[in-house]
C-alpha cells in the first residue's frame, strides 16, 4: 500500500489537497479531499447592511463571482419580499450576464485547466504503442492542447492553438460582461431589485457580435461540424439513442477517412470534441468504433455500483417567458434549466431546499452538526491538535463542511444539470455506459456534459440578447431597508461548477444576523459525514487506477493521472492565494532563470 498525496492539486482554483492510498495493483483504495482555505465570508457579513452582500460575496472568487452576485441577489429579492416584482428585462439582463460568465468559465476549464491533462507524456508513450496513428494523434494533441510554458523532457513545447484561442475567447467574454455590468470580475450591475444598467441598442449589437465570435471559435476548434448541425442532432435529437447514434456515425465517418491518412486535423473534420470522444473514451473509441487504443477516460472518476452519490441542481436562469417576477422557492420549476434531486439510480425527485444540511464531523469546525443553512454556524476549531488528515473515524481534515441532501452526498455541476434537463446526448451516453457496466458519471461524461452545456447556453444567450432584451423595458424596482426587518431570504442559483445557495436572516434593525453560503465545490469535494460516507470526489477517486490508461504501462505513483483526471473533471474551485515571483533558480550557465511560485 502506498500513500499518494497531491498537495496542492494544480490547475484548479485555490488550494485542494488530495490524499490517497494506492494498492499494489495501482488501484486507489482510499481517498481524503481537503479544502485548505478558510473562507470566513459568513462571519464578515454578520451585522452588515444586507444590500452589500451581493457585492461582498462576489469576492469569494475571481472566476465565478457572477454566480455569487446572482445567488445573493436572489436571497435579497426574497429577503425584501420583492422577488415577484423584478422586471422581466432585469431578469433577462441577469441571465445574459450569467450566461456569458458560464461560457467563459466552461471554456477556461475545458481548455486551460483540463485539456492540458491529455498532453501528459504518459499518453505519448501509450499512443506510441499503436504506431504511426498514435504518433500522429499525439502530435495533433500537442498542437492543440499544450499549455503555456510546457516542457516535456526539458524540451519547450509551444502553447497549443486551441489553448491560446480559448484564452482569447475568455478575454473577449470578460469584455462582453463589462458592456452591461460595468466590469469583470466582480461586476457591479446585478443588485437587489434588478440591475443598475439599462442596456442600449448599441450594447445589444455589441453583445450579439461577441456571441458570433464565440461561435466562430466553436466552429473552428471545438466542433468538426457546424454548431447548428451538432445541436440539432444531439440536444434536439428525437431520443437519447438517436443523439448517440448521430455522434457515433459521425465519428465512424471521420475514423474511416483518417486511419489511412493519419490526418487528425480540424480541416479533416476533427473538432476537439470529436478527438476527445473517439480517442478519450474506451466505450466509444475501442468498443463501438474498433480503434486500437483510447485514453479510457470513461474508466476514471466513476462511482462504485454501491455508491449512494446523487445529483443535485437548484435550476438556473429566470424564466423570462413568464414576464415580471419569479418565485425564489420554486426557482427552477419552469424555464430553461430545472431544479432536481436525482438519486444514484437516476430517479428524479422534486427539489426542496429544506432537505439541505451541512455536517461538520470531519471538518475544521465546531458546534452543532447537521444544520440547515438558515441555522448554520461557521465556527472554526481553535485547537490545531484536532486537525488530522488520516481520515479515520474521528479525524477532522478539511475546511469544507459536508453538505448532504436528505443525508446523501451529491455531485453538482454540468453533468447534474444535463441529467436534470434530460439532455438527450448526456442521457444517451449515460445509458450506453450503464448498459455496459460503467459508472454513469465518469471523467468523460463530466467533460462532455460541460462542452454540451457551453454550446446549449450559447444558443440560449443569442435568444436573450437578440429577442428578449428590450432596452425600453424596466430594469429595477425600488426597495427600502425597512422592508428587510426580521426577515429571511433564500438565493438558489447555479455557478458553472454547480448548485450554489445563499441563505440570509436579518434582525429588527434590518442588519444581517446570519448568512450562510453552500457552494458547489463544497458538495463535490466534501469530506466524510458522521456515518463515514465519503464525498463525491473521494468516492470517484476510490477504485480509479492511479496511472494512465488503467496502468497500461505500469504503475507510476509520481504521475498519478487517475487522480488528476478524476478530481479536475469536477472543475474544483477553492479560493484565492498569494503569488510572488521566485528568482532563486539558476541554470547551468549561471544566468538567472526566473521561477514563479
Amino acid at each position, binding site marked *: 500500500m502506498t500513500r499518494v498525496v497531491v498537495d496542492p492539486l494544480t490547475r484548479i482554483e485555490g488550494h485542494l489537497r488530495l490524499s490517497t492510498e494506492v494498492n499494489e495493483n495501482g488501484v486507489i483504495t482510499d481517498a481524503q479531499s481537503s479544502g485548505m482555505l478558510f473562507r470566513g465570508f459568513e462571519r464578515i457579513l454578520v451585522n452588515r447592511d444586507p444590500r452589500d452582500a451581493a457585492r461582498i460575496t462576489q469576492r469569494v472568487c475571481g472566476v465565478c463571482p457572477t454566480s455569487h452576485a446572482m445567488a445573493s441577489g436572489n436571497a435579497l429579492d426574497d429577503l425584501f419580499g420583492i422577488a415577484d416584482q423584478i422586471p422581466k428585462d432585469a431578469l433577462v439582463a441577469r441571465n445574459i450576464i450569467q450566461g456569458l460568465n458560464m461560457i467563459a468559465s466552461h471554456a477556461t476549464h475545458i481548455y486551460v485547466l483540463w485539456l492540458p491533462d491529455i498532453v501528459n507524456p504518459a499518453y505519448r508513450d501509450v499512443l506510441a504503442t499503436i504506431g504511426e496513428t498514435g504518433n500522429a494523434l499525439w502530435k495533433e494533441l500537442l498542437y492543440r492542447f499544450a499549455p503555456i510554458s510546457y516542457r516535456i523532457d526539458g524540451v519547450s513545447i509551444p502553447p497549443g492553438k486551441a489553448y491560446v484561442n480559448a484564452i482569447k475567447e475568455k478575454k473577449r467574454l470578460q469584455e462582453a460582461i463589462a458592456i452591461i455590468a460595468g466590469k469583470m470580475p466582480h461586476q457591479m450591475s446585478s443588485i437587489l431589485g434588478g440591475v443598475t444598467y439599462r442596456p442600449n441598442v448599441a450594447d445589444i449589437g455589441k453583445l450579439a457580435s461577441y456571441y458570433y465570435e464565440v461561435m466562430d471559435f466553436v466552429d473552428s476548434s471545438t466542433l468538426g461540424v457546424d454548431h447548428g448541425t451538432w445541436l440539432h442532432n444531439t440536444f434536439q435529437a428525437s431520443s437519447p439513442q438517436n443523439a448517440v447514434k448521430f455522434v457515433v456515425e459521425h465519428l465512424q465517418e471521420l475514423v474511416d477517412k483518417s486511419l489511412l491518412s493519419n490526418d487528425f486535423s480540424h480541416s479533416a473534420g476533427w473538432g476537439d470534441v470529436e478527438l476527445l470522444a473517439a480517442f478519450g473514451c474506451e466505450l466509444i473509441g475501442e468498443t463501438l468504433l474498433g480503434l486500437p487504443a483510447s485514453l479510457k477516460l470513461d474508466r476514471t472518476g466513476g462511482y462504485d455500483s454501491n455508491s449512494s452519490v446523487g445529483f443535485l441542481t437548484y435550476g438556473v436562469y429566470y424564466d423570462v417567458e413568464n414576464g415580471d417576477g419569479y418565485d425564489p422557492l420554486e426557482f427552477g420549476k419552469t424555464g430553461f434549466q430545472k431544479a432536481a434531486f436525482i438519486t444514484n439510480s437516476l430517479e428524479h425527485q422534486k427539489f426542496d431546499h429544506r432537505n439541505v444540511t451541512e455536517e461538520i464531523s470531519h471538518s475544521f469546525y465546531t458546534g452543532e452538526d447537521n444544520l440547515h443553512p438558515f441555522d448554520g454556524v461557521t465556527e472554526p476549531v481553535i485547537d490545531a491538535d484536532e486537525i488530522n488528515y488520516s481520515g479515520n473515524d474521528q479525524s477532522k481534515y478539511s475546511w469544507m463542511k459536508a453538505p448532504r441532501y436528505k443525508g446523501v452526498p451529491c455531485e453538482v455541476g454540468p453533468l447534474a444539470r444535463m441529467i436534470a434537463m434530460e439532455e438527450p446526448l448526456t442521457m444517451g451516453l449515460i445509458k450506453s455506459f450503464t448498459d455496459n457496466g460503467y459508472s454513469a458519471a465518469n471523467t468523460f461524461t463530466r467533460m462532455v456534459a460541460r462542452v454540451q452545456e457551453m454550446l446549449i447556453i450559447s444558443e440560449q444567450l443569442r435568444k436573450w440578447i437578440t429577442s428578449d432584451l428590450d432596452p425600453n423595458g424596466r430594469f429595477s424596482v425600488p426597495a427600502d431597508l425597512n422592508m428587510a426587518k426580521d426577515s429571511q431570504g433564500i438565493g438558489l442559483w447555479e455557478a458553472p461548477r454547480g448548485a450554489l445557495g445563499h441563505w440570509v436572516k436579518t434582525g429588527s434593525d434590518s442588519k444581517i444576523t446570519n448568512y450562510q453560503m453552500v457552494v458547489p465545490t463544497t458538495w463535490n469535494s466534501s469530506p466524510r459525514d458522521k456515518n463515514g460516507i465519503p464525498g463525491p470526489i473521494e468516492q470517484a477517486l476510490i477504485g480509479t487506477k492511479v496511472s494512465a490508461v488503467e496502468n497500461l504501462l505500469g504503475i507510476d505513483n509520481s504521475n498519478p493521472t487517475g487522480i488528476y483526471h478524476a478530481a479536475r473533471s469536477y472543475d474544483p474551485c477553492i479560493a484565492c492565494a498569494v503569488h510572488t*515571483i521566485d528568482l532563486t533558480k539558476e541554470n547551468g550557465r549561471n544566468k538567472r532563470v526566473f521561477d514563479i511560485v
Partner: protein
Amino acid sequence: MWRDDPTIRILGCGNPLVGDDGVGIHVIERLNELHSELPDNVELIDAGVCGLDILNMLENAEKVIIIDAVKGAGNIGSIHRFGIEDIKGARSNSVLSIHETCLADVLCIAEHIQKMPEKLIIFAVEVEMTDEISLCLSHKMQAYVDEVIDLILDELRAMKAS
C-alpha cells in the same frame, strides 16, 4: 476627456492581505495620493491577483509599468527593472491555478494573442514577509515603497522626453 497623447498605464499586482506580497498595491495607493502631480495620460490600476484578467488591462495602452513582488534574488528591498525579454525565461513552478497564473505566464500568453504595448517595464521588488496574514508591509519594506515611487516618476519623465 479627449486626449491625443499615448496612455501610460501603471499596474500594481499582488495580494495586500499577505503582507509584502501587496507591495505593488501599496505603490498604487501612494501614486493615487500623488495623482494631481501625475500627467493626465497616466492611469493607475490595482490589478490585485487578477491572473489572466491582466490580459484585458494590457489593452489600449502604449506604455505599461507593472509593479510586483519578487523573492529570492538579492537583498530585501532590491528593486529589479525588467523588460519583457528578461522574464521570457521564467516559467511557472506548476502552481498554475487561474488565480495564481504568474505574471510571466500572463505576459507570455499576451504575446500570443494580442498586440503588446510599445513599452513594458516591470519593477520587481524583493520582499520579505509573504506567509503571514497582514494588511501592512513589513517595517523594512515601507521604506522601499518611496524608492519605487521615485523610480516610477523617473520612468514617467523619461517616457515624456522620448
